[in-house]
């Protein structure tokens, strides 16, 4: 539970993960922002107006998945690194994930890395599709993972590297 150990519960996620219908239509943002903190860069970031702040900046952002095309601009902007993009239409049994990453060394496109879940546990491997370095120094990693892992994977570890 977030308040106890920093991990979102299945119920928390239920509300933000894309519906089966939305999954079929391609890449979409997953906004794992569960707390009312005064913050609105995601709304400023979205070029399609898919993210809005209802009345004031202390509320949680309101997300319209129908307007979202999964471009991932918000992934790099969210100060809490709490936005991810998932694209289940990427391959037969493969999903594409875009995650924010702020560690060094960076992996390279084509690398195989260890996929980690929200608790940092290894859940399989991921292939790095693209390394999108940004001016604001939050790198966006494009990862190919099995579709079954896509809702679980939120971080990576370079092969052979043990961080914690």
């Amino acid at each position: 539970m977030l308040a106890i150990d920093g991990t979102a519960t299945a119920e928390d996620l239920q509300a933000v993960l894309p519906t089966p219908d939305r999954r079929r239509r391609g890449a979409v943002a997953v906004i794992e922002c569960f707390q009312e903190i005064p913050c609105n860069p995601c709304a400023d970031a979205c070029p399609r107006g898919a993210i809005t702040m209802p009345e004031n900046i202390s509320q949680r952002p309101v997300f319209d998945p129908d307007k979202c095309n999964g471009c991932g601009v918000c992934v790099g902007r969210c100060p809490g690194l709490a936005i991810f993009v998932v694209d289940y239409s990427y391959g037969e049994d493969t999903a594409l994930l875009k995650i924010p990453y702020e560690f060094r060394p960076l992996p390279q496109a084509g690398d195989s890395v260890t996929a980690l879940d929200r608790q940092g546990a290894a859940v399989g491997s991921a292939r790095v599709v693209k390394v999108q370095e940004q001016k604001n120094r939050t790198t966006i990693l494009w990862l190919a993972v099995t579709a079954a892992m896509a809702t679980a994977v939120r971080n990576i570890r370079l092969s052979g590297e043990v961080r914690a």
Partner: protein
Amino acid sequence: MKEVDIVVIGGGPAGLSAAVHAAKMGAGVLLLERSQALGGQLVKQTHKFFGSRQEFAGERGFDIAHTLMEQIAQQEKIEVWTNATALGYYPDGVLTVKRNENFRTFRPRKLIVATGASEKALAFPNNDLPGIYGAGAVQTLMNLYGVMPAKRVLMVGAGNIGVIVAYQLLQAGVEVAAVIEAAPRIGGYWVHASKIRRCGVPILTGHTIRQAHGTTQLTGVTVCRLDEKWTMIPGTDTLFEVDGLCLAVGLSPLTELLWQAGCKMNFVPELGGYVPWRNEYLQTTHKNVYVAGDVAGVEEASAAMVEGKLAGLAAAFALNHQTADFAADYRAAKQQLNALRSGPLSAKVCHGLCKVMLEEAM
């Protein structure tokens, strides 16, 4: 003795913002900062800030510091002294300052105290071993000087500072064994907690330190669980073999100068300890002394910047400096501050502020 319109003490977010806005009104400002560089805690912050665009949301703390420093540099009315520590405020209105190794005296017409806060300590056996640091020290070493404090660190405190510095340790290549927190819930933003959690760092709420170990320096820490009355539960000890222990157990406002000025103070736990009574212009019960930022109550840097603006505008206005947009500017900043404090996470701060708000206007 030098006469100055406004002396701002502290070159952190509140002080920088206060200086800029007081100078924009036309007041002469002397800005004092005790360390070598301006920016206060901002310069150690590697994460992107929350808030809205007005408070530089999405920018990293040290980048915000540079933006503010540029604004300072553009103001001819501001003189900046670094390595300058305010030593005392005396009954005759004289402020004494140590600059480098020189003693200086001033008689400021208005004083804006933006001294920030200092870290609280924690009492446990061997809490003085080398390898045990305040979170600020760890940030200074890593983020200002690029030196690792230890190889493997245990973090105490899951408030924002604890979880943020734990993440910074990971970024610096330091292993973080765990974050422990005495309270039953994580006090910091959940998004920050989730960032370290997905790196595999356990967050143990309801845990405290029983004892640190080591003869010449830290070699380990025994941690145990707390019951709902905050007493240690026997038989729940866990030993963490670490060479670093980082304490992030809260801040208390640095109010010495306010006590010396004779400002009326009140103990407000929600704001970190003793804080001054103030009116809506951030003016204390001493008519020449204004406050802004953590010294007025421990809060986020974004709020500190807006408070600095309000205090800077108000102090300059009180010295008869005027601009056409003063009233509009002031109102907008008030609204900005209210917006920042509108969420449920600010309820505690707002509750605390009610205990030190003076009603009468300037």
